[in-house]
């Protein structure tokens, strides 16, 4: 190689270094969502109480959809009291919590709900169709849907009081 081309060798390594620097910083477990800002997929399920539970009927309210399972330990157990509390606090302010139980046994799910004294509507997604509609990877996952029915935020893993409150307040503050 001619002398004036020598600098090409270290230069060739540069893009590789940049790529590696970028690659090692990204989290292989990071879960992108393509659904933010898009209309939330409608669903009609039958709640554990036997009532129809349709997203469409909640239009005009801020909706928090939470996917959970009784075997999801500890995350689902951590956030269950948070969800129930949020429901009690916000139900009269135009917010509805919806629990969707996925990949679970009915008996175990009912036990979970009575353990945490759930009073917000919950339904089982047998067949996992709703979960796929929402691009759910695992439990728990929580979606915050605005009054116009668009998915605005998505949280993977247990949510805290602060997270739920912040997201709900943000959506409530918006003009419908």
């Amino acid at each position, binding site marked *: *190689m001619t002398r004036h081309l020598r600098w090409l060798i270290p230069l060739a390594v540069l893009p590789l270094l940049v790529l590696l620097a970028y690659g090692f910083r990204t989290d292989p477990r990071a*879960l*992108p*969502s*393509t*659904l933010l800002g898009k209309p939330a997929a409608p669903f009609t399920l039958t709640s554990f109480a036997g009532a129809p539970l349709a997203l469409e009927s909640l239009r005009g309210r801020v909706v928090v959809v939470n996917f959970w399972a009784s075997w999801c330990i500890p995350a689902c157990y951590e956030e269950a009291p948070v969800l129930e509390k949020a429901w009690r606090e916000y139900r009269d302010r135009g917010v509805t919590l919806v629990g969707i139980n996925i*990949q679970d046994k009915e008996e175990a799910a009912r036990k979970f709900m009575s353990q945490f004294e759930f009073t917000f509507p919950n339904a089982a997604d047998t*067949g*996992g*169709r709703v*979960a*796929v*509609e*929402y*691009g*759910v*990877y*695992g439990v728990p996952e929580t979606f915050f849907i605005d009054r116009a029915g668009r998915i605005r935020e998505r949280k993977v893993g247990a949510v805290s009081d602060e997270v739920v409150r912040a997201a709900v307040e943000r959506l409530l503050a918006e003009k419908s």
Partner: protein
Amino acid sequence: MTRLRLARALLLAVAALAALGAAPPGRAVTEDQVREVAANLRCVVCQSLSVADSPSETANQMRAIVRERLAAGETPEQVTAYFVEKYGTWILLAPPRRGFDLLVWVVPFMALALGLGLAILAMRRWRRRSAAAAPPAAVDDATRARIRREMAELDS
């Protein structure tokens, strides 16, 4: 072992579908057709497994959805597009050959071609240089005597 579980999972899926009567009438869908689509989809609860290969409940349900959509008359491409719409291109085991993802397909071959080119250039240069290099001059007697003398001095 895994195969057995897979077979059992498939059997269960088929049985569940039959029991639910979920498969709409119309097009008959073979296991191979379902597999063909599912093999390209990443199982969302596993690491590095396709929906076709995973024995998990989620993958099982996703195969059922694939089957349903195919039976409803969708093409394999449309079914794949449905999952991409919900999960992004993350769901695909092989990145699509367009846009930014095209780089993944092109760069290795470009790098290989570049490397080969450089190697050929370098080899040509080496050959030219060795051809051009003059044969080593013969050592004359005076020099040989001097080397011997100096070696002897070193030894002493």
